[in-house]
């Protein structure tokens, strides 16, 4: 049974289409990254999954309709929606008391042991903690909940690099165990690259790319083309072209590796490279492919 299943998921705010008929299936034990630019519909998608917003179309999360059964669903789902949503007035010890009081699957000892690794004091109020410490506290709470699905919506926004790295490290080492499912939405592509098992790009409420990380690694190749081979490389229909230090870097989908190796230096693109290639407006891609190298649009 899929953890999340959506068909024709649609959400309209006034005249803005936030989600334009998304089909989605996330199996148990996956770590899906939903990646998109600001305003792409990432948060709307995660809000729909969490029962925070109504929607049109079909959506089941762990066998339930999140909009009508949020309370029951939240026994099996935890989420961090944005950084800094912990109430600022509450004391650390009391937030532990409260979650232990209302959540049947919260293991307080576990949360305490996560907190013991940080410098967070039990008597502090949340408003006295730094932004990074608040994120640590929230993560400690969430990791101590024995949930089946964890949804993270821009969980590291505004944190410095040390906290961001630590955040994903703890998540992978101390939490993820292959029976849980994690959905993370972000536009900070680099930091989730090594975390994900599945990748989804969305833009303007539509899925523009969906693949597993194995597929991503086998499908996409990037070639730094030697100047004399540029025309030949372009003939192979790259999906994107950019200029790095005066040389053309072309990104190919399902191209023959040996054929590309003859044209220049072949390497695996990062998610960020693919993201830029997929998200560039079509006109840019066309320009990138056809225009002469001097008048290049560089993303």
């Amino acid at each position: 049974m899929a953890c999340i299943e959506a068909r024709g998921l649609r959400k309209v705010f006034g005249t803005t289409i936030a989600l334009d008929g998304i089909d989605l299936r996330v199996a148990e034990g996956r770590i899906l990254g939903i990646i998109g630019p600001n305003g792409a519909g990432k948060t709307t998608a995660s809000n729909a999954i969490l029962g925070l917003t109504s929607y049109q179309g079909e959506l089941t999360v762990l066998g339930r309709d999140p909009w009508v059964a949020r309370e029951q669903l939240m026994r099996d789902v935890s989420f961090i929606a944005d950084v800094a949503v912990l109430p600022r007035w509450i004391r650390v010890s009391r937030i532990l008391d409260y979650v232990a009081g209302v959540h049947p699957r919260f293991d307080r000892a576990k949360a305490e042991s996560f907190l013991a690794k940080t410098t967070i004091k039990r008597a502090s109020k949340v408003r006295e903690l730094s932004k990074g410490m608040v994120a640590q506290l929230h993560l400690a709470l969430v990791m101590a909940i024995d949930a089946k699905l964890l949804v993270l919506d821009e969980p590291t926004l505004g944190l410095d690099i040390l906290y961001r790295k630590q955040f994903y490290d703890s998540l992978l080492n101390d939490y993820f165990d292959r029976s849980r499912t994690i959905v993370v939405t972000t536009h900070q592509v680099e930091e989730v690259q090594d975390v994900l098992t599945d990748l989804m790009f969305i833009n303007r409420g539509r899925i523009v790319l969906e693949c597993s990380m194995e597929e991503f690694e086998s499908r996409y190749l990037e070639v730094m083309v030697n100047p004399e081979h540029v025309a030949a490389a372009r003939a192979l229909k790259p999906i994107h072209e950019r200029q790095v230090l005066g040389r053309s870097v072309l990104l190919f989908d399902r191209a023959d590796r040996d054929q590309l190796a003859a044209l220049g230096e072949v390497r695996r693109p990062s998610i960020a490279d693919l993201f830029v290639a997929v998200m560039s407006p079509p006109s840019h891609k066309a320009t990138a492919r056809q225009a002469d190298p001097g008048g290049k649009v560089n993303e």
Partner: protein
Amino acid sequence: MNNPLNIVPESAIESQSIAPATMSPTRPLYWSVRRELWENRSIYIAPLIVAAVQVFGFAISTIGLAERRRAVLLLDPAKQRAAIEMPYDLAAMMMIFTVFIVGVFYCLDALHGERRDRSILFWKSLPVSDLTTVLSKSIIPLVVLPLLAFAIIVCVQVILLLETSVVLIFHDVSPATTWAHFPVFQNWLVLLYGLIAIALWHAPIYGWLLLVSGWARRATFLWAVLPLLAIGIFEKITFNTSYFVSMVKYRLMGFAPDAFDFQGRSKPTIDSLAQLTPGKYLSTPGLWIGLVFAAAFIAAAVRLRRYRGPL
């Protein structure tokens, strides 16, 4: 839907039945009420400050108490009683007014503050329903504040009684007159009855304020009050009547003539339990109409919270 037993059959997730999902349904409510008290310390701090002021003010007023008491004892018994009871009744009335004000401002912020500081996203990430949340917030003005007022008034009155007795003994006046004219247990029974009557009567006010605090994006106080004012003014200008204004007044103070029998006295005093008329009060349509409105406002606030996110 709230019954945890329903979950297992309707879900095909195998570990569901293994996991320890058993929890008494009232537990989240209990913790949510405690949470409200952690967040809104003014709920008890404001009444305690008023109590401290009352005790302190009364302590100063005991200068010359013995002379005044000798003068009072020359009056006829009814006037004696009124004069001796006066500070105790005043203290109780001030406290009832205080908790009303605290309740009003609490309700105006209850469903607005969590949206303003975005913490609603955290509260909604926990298995606590909107119904539980809104109920926990209604319990504060309807149950917690009246009980708190009762406890504090009793404590203040005991302190005042002791202060009076000590001062009178010190000045060779028997304190028995105070104790005789202030039958404590009878008065506390009247007080408890009155607090319950007031809480029930004011329930629609709190319900309305909760609804507005869940609905308005800002200026909850204005949204709560201005529409009432507007209707009153509109009615006055258009029809030159003031039914709406009298209705609002009735909602604020109308409990008194139905909950108590003042037996045609000029001053609304209560000196016997026979003046409590719960039967008459419970058969007042105004009470039940108010409770129906309260339930409707609270139900609307529950429904609304489902759609609400951070501001």
